[in-house]
């Protein structure tokens, strides 16, 4: 495979340029980090509806008579528990329990499965799945549809009202982590009630060549719902407030699900799967590290990579940190040894060589109000 120096483009890259977005390299793509202001975009998703282009993400279809058995073997969760139309947060792990990627698995209404993965890990996920398939134990096949598939995501409290204007699909029947096929603005979509913002919202998957039409229809109809296009900058602060891990920050091949509070994803009782023995041992002994939430008590912004101290000694690192636009607090997630992970512990975060006091708080930092 050749790797060109030119960044990859999504079907919407030209449109982002027309909107005067600031484009940055991300996972080999040129992606909008912001259109006008990360803070405004963040607040729009919390209060109205933001529109994201997530077409860089990977969509890998698994089909064939033994798809369920294959996926149960390949991932840490149990996709066999999914009914048609349902989705599940999951992970691919190495044999040592380290995380290859976190993914969402969709059991589509027609029985096919989609594994939606991070753009930065698409090749690793495809490679891992192909390697497992090549052993010939399962009658299933893989189709990497990523380049043919666009993903446009209206996210926020007004997302449902907006999408409802453009579709006959009964959105009330699509609960959280459910999906349905249907036309949105006359374009065939997989309509999924999933997201990465901590708000209600949808992820609309469509053919790449219809992406612009879908985006423009949503943007036009969205005007009276307070819609703004939103970039990856706001996506990052939104997911951090919602306590959601980001691969490359909280998750990597040296980290296992139990360390990052995702033990519930791992279904040890489902039978053999990649990483099971290692994960079982970790579950039994307890993880050696733990992902915790921190709130700064002094005026400094924690950032990924900053040192975390307990009683003056370095014990861990910040994995993600920011000024929370919703809470007005400086917040972080950090990986620390498990013995320091009790709520109420005091820490310091070292910012420009000076320690600043922080207290441990429960994750997530933000939960959306529900009626």
């Amino acid at each position, binding site marked *: 495979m050749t790797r060109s120096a030119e960044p990859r483009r999504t079907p919407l890259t030209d449109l982002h340029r027309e909107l005067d977005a600031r484009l940055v390299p991300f996972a080999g793509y040129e992606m909008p980090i*912001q259109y006008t202001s*990360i*803070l405004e975009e963040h607040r729009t998703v919390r209060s109205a509806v933001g529109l994201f282009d997530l077409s860089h993400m990977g969509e890998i279809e698994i089909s064939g008579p033994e798809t369920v058995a294959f996926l149960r073997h390949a991932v840490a969760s149990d996709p066999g528990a999914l009914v048609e139309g349902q989705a599940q947060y999951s992970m691919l792990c190495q044999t040592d329990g380290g995380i290859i990627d976190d993914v969402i698995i969709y059991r589509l209404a027609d029985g096919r499965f989609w594994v939606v993965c991070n753009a930065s890990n698409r090749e690793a996920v495809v490679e891992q799945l192909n390697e497992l398939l090549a052993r010939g134990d399962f009658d299933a096949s893989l189709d990497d549809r990523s380049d043919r598939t666009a993903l446009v995501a209206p996210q926020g409290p007004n997302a449902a009202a907006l999408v409802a204007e453009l579709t006959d699909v009964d959105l009330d029947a699509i609960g959280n982590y459910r999906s349905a096929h249907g036309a949105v603005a006359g374009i065939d979509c997989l309509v999924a009630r999933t997201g990465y913002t901590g708000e209600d919202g949808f992820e609309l998957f469509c053919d790449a060549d219809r992406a612009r039409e879908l985006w423009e229809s949503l943007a036009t109809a969205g005007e009276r719902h307070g819609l703004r296009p939103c970039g990856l*900058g706001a996506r*990052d*602060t939104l997911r951090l407030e919602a306590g959601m891990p980001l691969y490359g920050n909280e998750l990597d091949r040296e980290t296992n699900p139990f360390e990052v509070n995702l033990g519930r994803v791992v279904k040890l009782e489902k039978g053999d799967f990649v990483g099971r023995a290692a994960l079982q041992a970790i579950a039994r002994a307890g993880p050696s590290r733990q992902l915790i939430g921190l709130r700064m008590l002094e*005026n400094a*912004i924690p950032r990924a990579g900053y040192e975390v101290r307990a009683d003056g000694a370095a014990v861990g690192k910040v994995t993600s940190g920011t000024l929370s636009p919703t809470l007005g607090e400086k917040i972080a997630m950090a990986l620390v040894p498990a013995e320091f992970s009790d709520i109420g512990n005091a820490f310091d975060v070292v910012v*420009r060589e000076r320690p600043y006091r922080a207290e441990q708080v429960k994750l997530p930092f933000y939960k959306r109000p529900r009626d």
Partner: protein
Amino acid sequence: MALPDDLRYSKEHEWVRVEGSRATIGITSFAADELGDIVFVELPDVGSSLGQFATFGVVESVKAVSDLFSPISGEVVEVNEALRESPELLNSDPFGDGWIAKVELADASEVDALMDAHAYTAETA
């Protein structure tokens, strides 16, 4: 946006306004736009000495941490305390209410090494 023509500008996108032996310094609208929403400013201490083109503080946007480089050398006589509570002044009024520090100049001739508005406009075009 036209730049104030009574200021001098550095390649690091700071500005300086000289009034007698004192100078006010800040960051340019170009720098503020590039940074995006500024959410934190670390100001120098009053009484500290600044070196020309040396770091004297930090600005942080939502995504990034950036050093501030002083366009001139001298001693800090006043800092803009309003920035501690309202760092967004750097975005909304970088040449006015978003000033950063006032400095007693060590060497007024250093200003000659800086750009005028015309040259800085060309630099950032």
